[in-house]
């Protein structure tokens, strides 16, 4: 639907050379990215990578220091108001209004966003149904579970039927069941043609929901691509890990050097780059357990950033 017309006109979200400074810190340090109509793009990175700052700038909530940001052809840096007319925004904190009930959260938001009171009321009923919250419509926000609060925050962003949605860590802090629920709903929005830009620090979330993933660290995008391509490019097909089972670290290091392997140490775990695990003499190392598994986005992330993406 919307996606087609938007695609013809170029990327729906177009960020070029974006720089955002906080004092001497370059929170966003030259980010360029394009999100096409109907696409889901994930910003994957640890806390402090610049994901939130990037999303706030393109939502028109935060000024930028350099670069350009266009959303649906609108200059987000100059016309924040116009951008927020077409954009649904889910901030990291749900930002729900505890002074009014669930239904009123949606209706008041819709009214403020420009719907008439009647439209706001009818759209509220629709999104409550879509997000399976109808039964809780008259409840106090504080009585909802964490997962329901998040779904309400996403529902709120959808009240005005935005064609583009920006979600900042939509499942952080949720239990696995609630995460699945949110994932299902995001997948349904995607199937309706909504363009989605989301940030996450969950590998599985990025791999499941996103058509493409941009790996971010320290304000920069290190690489962008479909998750399988990123894995292939930076971690190969499989990963070989050595677990110490009595052997000393130094003896393992020596053996790896002798076998001309590259490796990283994560605690007592040695992760070998590429297919180094094939070297036969490694398998015969005493006191070492050798595991081989399919490479994941996490391995690609590790190669790119030199660090693990810990869930904080």
């Amino acid at each position: 639907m919307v996606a087609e017309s938007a695609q013809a006109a170029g990327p729906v979200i177009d960020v070029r050379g974006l720089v955002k400074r906080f004092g001497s810190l370059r929170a966003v340090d030259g980010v360029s990215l394009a999100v096409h109509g109907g696409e889901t793009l994930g910003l994957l990175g640890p806390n402090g990578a610049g994901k939130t700052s990037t999303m706030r700038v393109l939502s028109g909530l935060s000024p930028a220091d350099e670069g350009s940001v266009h959303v649906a052809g609108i200059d987000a840096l100059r016309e924040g108001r116009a951008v927020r007319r077409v954009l649904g925004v889910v901030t990291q904190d749900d930002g729900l209004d505890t002074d009014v009930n669930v239904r009123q959260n949606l209706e008041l938001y819709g009214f403020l966003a420009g719907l008439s009171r009647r439209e706001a009321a009818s759209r509220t009923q629709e999104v409550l149904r879509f997000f399976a919250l109808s039964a809780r419509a008259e409840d106090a926000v504080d009585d909802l579970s964490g997962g329901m609060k998040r779904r309400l925050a996403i529902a709120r962003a959808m009240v005005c039927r935005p064609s583009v949605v920006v979600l900042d860590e939509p499942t952080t802090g949720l239990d696995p069941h609630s995460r699945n629920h949110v994932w299902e709903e995001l997948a349904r929005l995607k199937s309706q043609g909504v363009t989605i830009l989301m940030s996450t620090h969950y590998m599985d979330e990025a791999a499941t929901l996103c058509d493409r993933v941009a790996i971010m660290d320290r304000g920069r995008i290190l690489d962008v691509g479909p998750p399988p391509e990123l894995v292939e490019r930076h971690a190969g097909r499989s990963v070989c890990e050595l677990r110490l089972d009595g052997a000393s670290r130094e003896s393992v290091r020596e053996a790896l050097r002798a076998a001309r392997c590259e490796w990283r140490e994560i605690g007592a775990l040695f992760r070998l780059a590429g297919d180094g695990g094939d070297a036969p003499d490694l398998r015969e190392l005493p006191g070492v357990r050798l595991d081989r598994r399919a490479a994941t986005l996490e391995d690609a992330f590790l190669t790119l950033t030199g660090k693990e993406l810990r869930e904080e």
Partner: protein
Amino acid sequence: MSVDSAIATAASPAARRQRVRLRSITGVWWRHAVALARVWRVAFTWFFVEPAFVLLAMGMGVGRLVGTLPEHGPYATFVTPGMVVGMAMFHALFECSWGAFQRIQGNVMETLLTTPTTVTELAAGEVAWGGTRALISTLAVGGLAVAIGWMPAVSLPGVMLVALFVGLEFGAVGLCFAAGASTLPTLTLVFTVVATPLFFFSGSFFPIEVLPAALQPVAWLAPLSPGVHVARGIAEGALDRTHLAAAGYLVFLSVAFFPLAVALLRRRLVK
């Protein structure tokens, strides 16, 4: 509104030129009205029960001791307009400092800014609601005063108009504190340093003329004084040139703090 038309509207030159969006202000105001309606039983005590006790204690208790004031008549009728305006100040100040602070901390304001609402419009909605609360308070306490004969009914609309301007003024003052205070203890300064001294030294409980001569000009310039003076003039049906000057000063004050409130709120919310 369909998505395509939403994009078309957003991209239209008219939408881009729009300087002030009325819907933003009414939307924020409406949110506050709904939130208040949700707790109307408790709110009844804020607007009526507590102020009624204070008014009756002053008028019947202190008023019995003081008797009649020269140039003003019975103490109860003297103190009533001052009380009513003072209560209006408290309502606007409370809403726009304590209430707004909670809305900043709870990210409610950030959420409101994800709609096509600007910081200035958000602040205007907050302050407009401060003015509205001042009006409701004045209707409640002033209505009681009228019912027990401490204020003529005919003066109520005029006193309410004064209360509206007082509400806008102190709504902006409260918002300055809400946006400027980083912690709750700092925020309490708005009551200890601003509201309480003003409540007692702006001519509400005793004429400013009884203060030491050196302090009188300060008291006259204090931001609650013009409201009290004009409301009393209206209630006593005796308006002169001083009331005209005070009214002008009040109108000036009702907008004077708003730009600062917007600047502080922007600094707080837009990073």
